[in-house]
């Protein structure tokens, strides 16, 4: 099939950037979206143009590196699917496809479609862990975890940190990402000792990074390729309220 791509091109952080139109021919429906971009880039290189920079790595939907806004949807039209696993059979001959980077102050554009998501690492560094220095662990079976809790923790732990939640949120909020980690760790017994310091630290880091506030709209959960549920944010809020109350009380 033949397509028209309109791609955001931006030489570097200081460049203003613009949408540029590229026709692509003979796209196979079995190609992945990124393979379609590979084909375009091969042609651009041979034509003496700069290829389009885009982030990608594992190409199997787990590393969270790919980050494309495709026709106004984070990771494109297929639910529960990262851009790297999106296949061209989801599109039709003659389509025009707009491709943009994630847009958020906390995710500045590096080049073309590549953004800097270091803010997510900072949120984790502010408390998204269990303090368990190597060697200090007790025998694994000393603390049983109810299966339901373990399964629910896993559901939140499945977050790949791609940032689609931020890209899709009308407020540019990173609350779903933050809440996913908080939910995972607050459901497990291992996460209890740091439960309340964690939530304060992570939410503060989230706000400092320049993400917007959450107004419970739910676009994040709809865009999430791993199906992190919106109610994780309720858990974050509850822990945050309790933590604030504890802090005020102490």
């Amino acid at each position: 099939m033949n397509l028209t791509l309109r791609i955001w091109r931006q030489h570097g952080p200081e460049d203003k950037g613009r949408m540029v139109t590229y026709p692509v021919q003979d796209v196979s429906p079995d190609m992945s979206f990124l393979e379609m971009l590979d084909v375009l880039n091969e042609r651009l290189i041979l034509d003496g143009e700069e290829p389009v920079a885009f982030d990608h790595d594992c190409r199997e939907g787990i590393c969270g590196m790919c980050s494309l806004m495709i026709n106004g949807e984070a990771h494109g039209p297929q639910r529960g699917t990262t851009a790297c696993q999106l296949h061209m059979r989801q599109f039709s001959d003659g389509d025009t496809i707009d491709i943009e980077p994630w847009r958020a102050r906390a995710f500045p554009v590096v080049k073309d479609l590549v953004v800097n998501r270091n803010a997510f690492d900072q949120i984790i560094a502010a408390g998204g862990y269990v303090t368990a220095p190597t060697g200090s662990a007790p025998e694994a079976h000393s603390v049983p975890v109810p299966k339901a809790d373990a399964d629910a923790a896993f559901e939140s732990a499945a977050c790949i940190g791609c940032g689609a939640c931020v890209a899709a949120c009308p407020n540019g909020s990173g609350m779903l990402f933050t809440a996913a980690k908080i939910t995972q760790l607050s459901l497990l017994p291992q996460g209890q000792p740091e439960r309340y310091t964690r939530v304060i630290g992570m939410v503060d880091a989230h706000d400092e990074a320049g993400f917007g506030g959450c107004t419970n709209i739910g676009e994040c959960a709809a865009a999430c390729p791993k199906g992190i549920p919106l109610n994780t944010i309720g858990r974050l809020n509850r822990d945050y309220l309790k933590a604030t109350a504890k802090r005020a009380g102490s």
Partner: protein
Amino acid sequence: MDLYREGDPIADTRAPDGPIETRWERHRFEMKLVNPANRRKMTVIVVGTGLAGGSAAATLAEQGYQVRSYCYQDSPRRAHSIAAQGGINAAKNYRNDGDSVHRLFYDTVKGGDFRSRESNVHRLAEVSVNIIDQCVAQGVPFAREYGGLLDTRSFGGAQVQRTFYARGQTGQQLLLGAYQALERQIGLGNVEMNARHEMLELVIVDGRARGIVVRDMVTGEISTEMADAVVLATGGYGNVFYLSTNAKGCNVTASWRAHRKGAYFANPCYTQIHPTCIPVSGDHQSKLTLMSESLRNDGRVWVPKAKGDQRSPREIPEDERDYYLERIYPSFGNLVPRDIASRAAKNVCDSGRGVGPTGLGVYLDFADAINRLGRKAIEAKYGNLFEMYERITGEDPYEVPMRIYPAVHYTMGGLWVDYDLQSSIPGLFVIGEANFSDHGANRLGASALMQGLADGYFVLPNTLANYLASSGPLDKVDASHPEAVAARTDVEDRIKRLLAINGDRTVDSFHRELGQIMWEHCGMERSEAGLRKAIDEIRALREQFWQRVRVPGDGEGLNQSLEKAGRVADFFELAELMCIDALHREESCGGHFRAEHQTPDGEAQRDDDRFAYVAAWEYTGTGEPVLHKEDLTFEYVHPTQRSYK
């Protein structure tokens, strides 16, 4: 032979002796320690943030060293360990099914086709139990039973249920555990994290590894970072085949640069071909996707009995199907080790009975399991894998059998290290898939995660301390040292050279062609004629590369073509060494199958008399590498012909 020279044999001088159960314990006691007050003054560079690198960086920082960590991804959380699906082995024996440290040790040595070191493997089996404890303490959400205890399953040819898992995303969950420990240390200021940085050269001062040259992939800036020791945790080199299950960015450059500076490269020809991957769909293919081996627990592998049978799989009656693994290997059936399952798939496809549009595929059928256990149970076990399959192929595996084909997945070879995980360059340590150490000629399923974390959490932090304590205070050196300046100049010149060619072919076109040569001649089955042809072709293509490649843009700022060009240039050199190694190893073992060396019924034929050694290759710069042999002795697990019949 004309392709290499044989040098002096080498030995693992750090390997302890005595009863195997006590070796690691005694060695740990005999190693020197670094005073906590002195650790603050020591800097360690860790390149790579996967299971090995991430866990090592976090642990070293916890112990008080100044750690500088580097990764090419935009975040340490994205290293390719994250894609491991199946699980992690540990000799916990929670099932009371006869497992033990000794059995895990035994299975791993045997699974590696008697080409690994007993001492290393035993240590791996010993610390496997600590890994599970550590990960649980970090909040890794392993699968659990209703009683709240950890669930385990049997995996990839093991007859005990020793594999711990977190649905089909075990690697992700373990990596995030290590990543979070690392982020904690970053937050505390003990680790300086440098994401989107690529190591392009190793700096050696007075015979010791003292630093690296890195390129900031965002600004293009080249800088030299010095330290007291350098740890490479840079993964495997499967991308030399272009198509593999590795992430697109996985590369051999860090290892290869170290090799060029004197680190021996061991057993490069040992590559693992994973039997259950989604088949290639066309020329545009950029990578291959693995479907977890755990699928073989419930799926049955078959092809039509008749050649060229074009019927849809559901129309082929039971008696016209060949469940060839169950037929040839009745006692292990669909659970034979990876190398055997892969080669069997190749054989049936070569005989014209492959399925799918390319004829390069076999069925993995869940109809029986769905009938027996119900669709719900299958969904709970494999739901995410089935969804992934459907997204990629557009076919519903609940209705139609999956089509699978082998793909390059893991590389057992890597930089040579001693028992302390130190390479042949003092101060250069290599951990995880990047080293060659524990898997011999074939890695068992769910053992990669085990080895990466064993090295990073429990082995390296001890052995590195011993090195730092034994070497005494090293001279302070900075980036102005002549060796550092020279290394940096080399890097800059190489980048300039790549950018200046401005030819008429893209980097990817070369990489793809190199991959085809390797897959054809150095893939699942190798032969002398094929390997010789491959070496000629690789040399010719490499020459073309340096004349005709076009790298657009400049060295300033983000330039993904430039990154790829540097990596492919190194893959060319590695590819040649792989073929030489494969050619010199005139036997079949594990992931290395030589057509000339097979039993009458087509199984791998080892030659323990001539080849029970590690082939450690030294770079000479003349195109004629020097082979150093490290003899392997087996005191506890006596080499036998592997038989899974």
